[in-house]
């Protein structure tokens, strides 16, 4: 076996009384690609923060090339050859790529001046050697996300890093960019560099990694060889239980009409986004709206929830007209809404968990008495929902903004479902959420259906639509182009319909 370059022994990290990492040990060999798998909030980023000098360990030791080291800041980590590529890139948009790369390690000429030409030459050599396509004179704010990531990699290479840490490197990349990144991983490993990458995407681990360390709730569950471990096995280790690929649908009464949208037209910025659309959702059924992003789904949902003006047509909820009514009127009619963008629409990030969980009832008794907020009730209500919906947080007074994406989404889901709606509208409810939380949210949505509620689901994820829906309607350019039964439709056929095409065997590739 190749030599060990990093060894972390019995690492524990506490934030106050909260143990983010609990007795974690792992090792990394030369030229190896190691995946760090875990759900959001499992403690992966904390662990890597300590290896890159951003955080200090509470206890435990870190060995680099066999020697114990204590790193107080990223500079010292850099001196040990550790380069970190953060999930949210640590770049300065107003600076050029070149300035971003040399910042902090500027080559100096004649005592004071930065040697830009010398630096550019060195970066050019490195980019040829590792096939990192970057434009060093462009401003960072003008380049693509993929190139920004290559700039981050170049920053580490420029500092002669031998150990690369990637924090969720593929989160913001397009499929093509992911492919390219995997190639770069290969090139780095071939040159004897070692890589640790944090992820919760199993496909990428299968594709790129040699070994995989699975972390759950701050503890190492297992370290496996990727080649002889199935994806499902890793997924189960990550979430700590068997994952189910289907939901259990009970027979319920589906006769009552809850949502009746008729001949709806919605315009945005002078463009018709929803065209003469009619749609019904009954009690006890999940209607899935499939379609490629930007085909009018968002506008349709905003029109139903009162956030977008309706040009013509009507929206009826439980036989009452709610066309162009105020959002609160619609909410009070028994509509729950899990919006697409939890951070800007669904939550108030600086407010506490408890406050966010009361955003729908803060103005009513008992959360509000004589115009004064009843914090005792709000906080107790928050505690209860946190427990019921398994939201992972320190306590109900934590700001929502500090939770991981999956847990933020659970807050929205908890608030909307706890308000006991007759109609639940969910727009991409599992976007950017890890496997365990996805399964949980799916079950919550399906439970609503089983208890006789109407559910309207919009998703760009075909698997999600097929798994949950009783009926699927396909939207294309603001119109419903077809309705299908999920039981006898494959994701390929659905994909073709979403592209606006009739199913023909020879055009299947066009849809992918």
């Amino acid at each position, binding site marked *: 076996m190749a030599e060990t370059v990093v060894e972390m022994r019995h690492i524990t990290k506490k934030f106050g009384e909260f143990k983010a990492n609990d007795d974690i040990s792992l090792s990394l060999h030369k030229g190896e690609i190691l995946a760090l798998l875990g759900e959001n909030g499992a403690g992966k980023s904390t662990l890597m923060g300590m290896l890159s000098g951003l955080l200090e360990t509470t206890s435990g030791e870190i060995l680099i090339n066999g020697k114990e080291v204590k790193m107080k800041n*990223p500079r010292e980590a850099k001196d040990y050859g550790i380069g970190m590529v953060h999930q949210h890139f640590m*770049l300065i948009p*107003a600076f050029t790529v070149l300035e971003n790369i040399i910042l*902090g390690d500027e080559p100096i000429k004649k005592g004071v001046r930065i040697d830009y030409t010398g630096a550019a030459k060195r970066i050019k050599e490195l980019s040829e050697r590792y096939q990192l396509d970057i434009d060093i004179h462009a401003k960072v704010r003008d380049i693509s996300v993929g190139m920004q990531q290559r700039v981050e990699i170049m920053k580490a290479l420029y500092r002669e890093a031998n150990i690369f840490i990637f924090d969720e490197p593929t989160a913001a990349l397009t499929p093509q960019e992911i492919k390219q990144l995997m190639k770069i991983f290969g090139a780095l490993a071939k040159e004897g560099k070692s890589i640790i990458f944090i992820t919760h995407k199993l496909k990428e681990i299968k594709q790129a990694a040699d070994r995989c360390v699975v972390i759950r709730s701050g503890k190492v569950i297992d370290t496996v060889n990727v080649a002889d471990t199935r994806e499902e096995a890793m997924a189960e280790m990550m979430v700590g239980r068997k994952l189910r690929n289907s939901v259990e649908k009970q027979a319920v009464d589906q006769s009552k009409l809850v949502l009746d949208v008729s001949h709806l037209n919605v315009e945005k910025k002078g463009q018709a986004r929803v065209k003469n659309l009619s749609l019904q959702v009954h009690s006890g059924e999940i209607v899935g709206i499939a379609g490629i992003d930007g085909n009018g789904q968002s506008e349709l949902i905003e029109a139903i929830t009162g956030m977008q003006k309706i040009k013509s047509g009507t929206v009826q909820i439980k036989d009452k007209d709610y066309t162009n009514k105020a959002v609160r009127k619609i909410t009070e009619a028994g509509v729950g809404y899990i919006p697409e963008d939890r951070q800007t629409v669904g939550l108030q990030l600086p407010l506490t968990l408890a406050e966010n969980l009361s955003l729908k009832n803060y103005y009513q008794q008992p959360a509000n008495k004589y115009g004064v907020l009843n914090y005792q009730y709000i906080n107790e209500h928050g505690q209860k929902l946190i427990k019921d919906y398994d939201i992972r947080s320190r306590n109900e007074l934590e700001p929502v903004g500090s939770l991981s994406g999956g847990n933020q989404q659970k807050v929205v889901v908890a608030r909307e479902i706890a308000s006991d709606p007759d109609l639940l509208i969910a727009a991409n409810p599992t976007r950017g959420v890890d496997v365990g939380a996805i399964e949980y949210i799916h079950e919550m949505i399906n439970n609503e259906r089983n208890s006789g509620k109407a559910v309207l689901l919009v998703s760009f994820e075909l698997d999600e639509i097929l798994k949950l829906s009783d009926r699927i309607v396909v939207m294309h350019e603001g119109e419903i182009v077809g309705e299908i039964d999920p039981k006898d439709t494959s994701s390929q056929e659905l994909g073709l319909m979403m592209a606006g095409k009739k199913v023909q065997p020879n055009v299947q590739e066009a849809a992918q």
Partner: protein
Amino acid sequence: MNLTTTLMTILSTTLVYAAPLIFTALGGTFSERSGIVNVGLEGMMIVGAFSSSIFNLSFDRMFGDATPWIALFVGAAFGCLFSVLHAVATISFRADHIISGTVLNMMAPALCVFLTRIFYDGKGQTPELNDGLGTTTIAGLSKIPFLGKVMFTQTSLVAWFAILVSVICWYVLYRTGFGLRLRSVGENPAAADTLGINVYQYRYMGVLISGFLGGLGGAVMAQSITLSFSISTISGQGFMSLAAMIFGKWNPLGAMGAAVFFGLAQSLPIIGAYIPGLEGINSVWFQVAPYLITIVVLVLFLGKSVGPAADGENYIKSK
């Protein structure tokens, strides 16, 4: 007056009034490039003007003609010392930058006038300085035909020095490692931190440099224009400098250019009478002109010009 003399008068008066603004606007640039909003420039100027005046009055027998120049340095040093308050409040204690700057602006005149009363038998104004900076004819350069007469005869030497300093500031900010790092902590402190740059240290340096240059600007004001210290010595010049910095897009050369423009505006009450076509206008208009122009410039450019991304944001390092 012939054309050459008219131009010379306008230019030299403009430069006299521009010099304090140039130094102070450069100071503001360093502070805000590092991410600390500095509305306390006015206060720093007051401290610089006060301390340099006291030094000039106390030591002019000892140092003779060199007194005003040494006084400039004294004013700068005290400005720097005064700015420590702003640095500690905003960087170490994460106070709101605007509030802290306002405190400086309220504290400086109160403190300085109080001390003036103690030093000079209860008078709120110092006696007149015996040695001011005055005007200088620069040997050599003044021999250049036409330009030599207009630009370098009976001109403000300290203003040319200020222009030279602004070129040096530009070089420091845009060509040296120190400048790149200073700008980086004002753009994205978290990114700078991951590269091992001590955000707090660079921000302290930005604020202290701004205190030094702001104090210098105030000292220039007292040594070359008012020739004494009182409550009215610094009357809005700090805010004009702030406007010049914004107008100049947080760039030392831009700030310098804007400061010269404001200098022209400030010199209008004096030179207005010499400018052909403006003789008939009531001088009241010239006196309000600098303030009006400042407001108009701010209204027109504040929204549009883009400053450092993290300007005014406190940085909290996680441990």
